[in-house]
């Protein structure tokens, strides 16, 4: 055991496939700053995954930070909280990034950040708390996976109770530009670690791993010091390679366990939780604060002063841009999340949501390379770099020929749409997009 610990201090965990991207982590040295109180926040009553919430406040009501303003009556989903204190101005229906109409509660901010009375620490110590109680605390705090997929964390924990032996905190942050997790580790690593301990207690697990890519040596040193004297915890250093932060790749890299197609991490005895999610669990447990803010890396070649911003949920992109000194060039593309899997946005007044790990503002010049398209030259780069070991070039050909069944035979449904193939394609073929078309057609058929 001792030998293994020594060995793992030096080894760098990795997986087969993937690619080393141009990192652009220029904001890593910038401390997180709090966004000045925005005039209004617009909180959508749905997050990307889960049922829509029903509002429980009316126009004109006074709300406080942490107060529940929307509840989910049935199905998957967590309550929605007010992220600022103030008055409910209106409840409007707006289209979200995907063009789906969603009800938003607009709160006029009084700037006082008064806490609601429900915000108080859990009354029992961690040792006496039952797993069910922890799951309920996480649900009441409205915590979703903050890595970008925003799967409700309580559901993840609930389904994993009794099935897992390892909890992995995902601090890989393999997408370029984003430094939100890196800053969190440097500034609040204790919250990440105590969040991990809460999850380990809930799942009665004895092995907690904090997995960090080797491009964050300062965070690794800090964490290694922090886990000293905690025999159940250890830090694993991952090789910097995209998509190392994918659950499948991180579990395989560290535990050499492959999640079978169509199964979940819990089926191979692992739970993977994002670093910021872990920090949110800690805050919810020890201070009772629900998830009302998150760190957003605001950068891109159009931003004057890139920053890591702690923004209340519901603040508009425009508020963040203004805080970052405005734009130096007109943006051609606004991406929420990383450049590899993030979504292009169409509205600069859209609100920050739980999945907004970064806001990237790219100029026309930057985006030019994405407009180059020609025919596949069969170079095999996509095959060499696919983390799922697919043959994206042939999947694309089948999708182009609309032979979706043939694509299914070549396991098109296993694609995780990480974008590594398109990134490496010299011909500029929109490989991922063709694969999405094939997957969509196959899903329709079922």
């Amino acid at each position, binding site marked *: 055991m001792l030998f293994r610990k020594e060995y793992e201090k030096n080894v760098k965990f990795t997986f087969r496939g993937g690619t080393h991207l141009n990192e652009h982590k220029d904001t890593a040295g910038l401390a997180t700053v709090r966004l000045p109180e925005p005039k209004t926040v617009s909180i959508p009553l749905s997050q990307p995954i889960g049922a829509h919430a029903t509002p429980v406040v009316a126009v004109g009501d006074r709300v406080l930070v942490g107060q529940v303003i929307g509840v989910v009556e049935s199905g998957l989903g967590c309550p929605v909280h007010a992220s600022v204190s103030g008055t409910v101005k209106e409840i409007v229906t707006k289209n979200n990034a995907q063009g789906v109409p969603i009800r938003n509660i607009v709160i006029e901010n009084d700037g006082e950040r008064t806490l609601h009375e429900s915000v108080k620490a859990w009354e029992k110590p961690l040792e006496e708390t039952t797993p069910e109680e922890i799951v309920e605390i996480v649900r009441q705090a409205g915590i979703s996976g903050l890595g970008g997929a925003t799967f409700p964390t309580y559901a993840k924990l609930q389904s994993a109770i009794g099935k897992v032996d390892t909890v992995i905190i995902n601090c890989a942050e393999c997408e370029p530009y984003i430094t939100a997790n890196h800053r969190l580790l440097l500034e609040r690593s204790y919250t990440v670690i105590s969040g991990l301990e809460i999850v380990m207690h809930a799942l009665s697990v004895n092995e907690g791993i904090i997995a960090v890519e080797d491009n964050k040596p300062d965070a690794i040193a800090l964490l290694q010091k922090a886990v000293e004297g905690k025999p159940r915890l250890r830090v694993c250093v991952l090789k910097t390679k995209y998509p190392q932060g994918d659950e499948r790749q991180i579990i395989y890299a560290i535990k050499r366990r492959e999640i079978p197609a169509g199964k979940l991490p819990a089926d191979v005895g692992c739970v993977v939780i994002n670093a910021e999610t872990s920090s949110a669990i800690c805050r919810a447990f020890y201070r009772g604060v629900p998830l009302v803010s998150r760190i957003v890396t605001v950068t891109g070649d159009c931003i004057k002063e890139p920053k890591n911003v702690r923004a209340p949920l519901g603040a508009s992109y425009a508020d963040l841009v203004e805080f970052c000194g*405005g734009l130096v060039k007109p943006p051609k593309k606004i991406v929420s999340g990383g450049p590899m899997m993030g979504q292009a946005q169409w509205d*600069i007044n859209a609100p920050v949501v739980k999945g907004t790990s970064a806001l990237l503002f790219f100029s026309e010049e930057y985006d030019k390379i994405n407009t180059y398209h020609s025919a596949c*030259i069969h170079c095999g780069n996509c095959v060499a770099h696919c983390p799922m*070991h697919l043959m994206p070039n042939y999947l694309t050909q089948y999708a182009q020929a609309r032979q979706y069944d043939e694509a299914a035979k070549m396991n098109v449904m296993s694609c995780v749409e990480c974008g590594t193939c398109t990134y490496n394609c*010299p011909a500029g073929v929109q490989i991922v*997009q063709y694969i999405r078309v094939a997957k969509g057609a196959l899903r329709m058929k079922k």
Partner: protein
Amino acid sequence: MDQNQNVTVTAPELLTVSPSPHARRHVTTASVMKDVLIALLPATVWGIYLFGIRAAITLLLCVVSSVVFELLTQLVLRRTVTVADCSAAVTGLLLGLNLPPTVPFYVPIVGSAFAIIVVKQLFGGIGKNVMNPALAARVFLMMAWTGQMTVFPAAYDRVGFGVDAVASATPLVALKQGVLPEAGLADLFLGRVGGCIGEVSVLMLLIGGIYLLVRRVIAWHIPVAFLGTVAILTLLFPQGEIPPLTFMLTSLCSGGLVLGAFFMATDYVTSPVTPVGRLIFGVGCGALVVFLRYFSGYNEGVSFAILIMNALVWYLDMCTKPRVFGKKRREKKA
């Protein structure tokens, strides 16, 4: 927005909403093709130095006519014009390097037309051709003008215009008869022998090949498997009374083997994409080269070997599919 700055945020309707990923590696088809051209430069320069102005004109004719034919075909067929990606120039240069310097000037032009129009564009353009255009054109020219295509001037015989060169026996002819060629191993390696313009100097070709490997334009699998197979087979089965090791090294350094292994067999379009497929492809090419050199009517077998393996690329890819993450190698049929 910030009033102090004279920059405005563009209106939402001007934002591009496209699917992810929003980042790209700055490698394009054109940059890959330019790398191949750079890698062929040493061999080209050596060929011109060895065979004189006539070689330069032959190469120039090949490159220019290939580009022109590509442009014309694409204009006539109303396809997107893609001559800027340099792939036609690469095909032209490779064809030129595979021609003897003494060929009449219509031969490179007809060869380029065959390579670009018939082998490449009629099959659908870049990425769609089944066979390597330069090699297919070379074989076509060999069939059409066997006489002109098999006359090679001696090294440093800088042939002028309209003068018939004095034919010199190539090393492969000697090897086939079971005797060592006149030129020594060092001459073969450095390229002081007669032959096609670009195939003579193993050293210059290796420099280009290593450049491609270092730039990660090509993977090591095909050249290593190709040359390795030829090396093993010639070592095991030497011909005549030649010592095995000498026979092996002479075989490796003669003919278009190195040019074929680094520049022709590794052509993306006509080689497999999986590592295992590439190894099998290379071994197949190597075995066929030795077989053809030993038993066929031709002295040279590289072109035919690669063309035959080109036809098998699809099957090699399908037989060597990597195991998909999270799946068993052989899924039970539902």
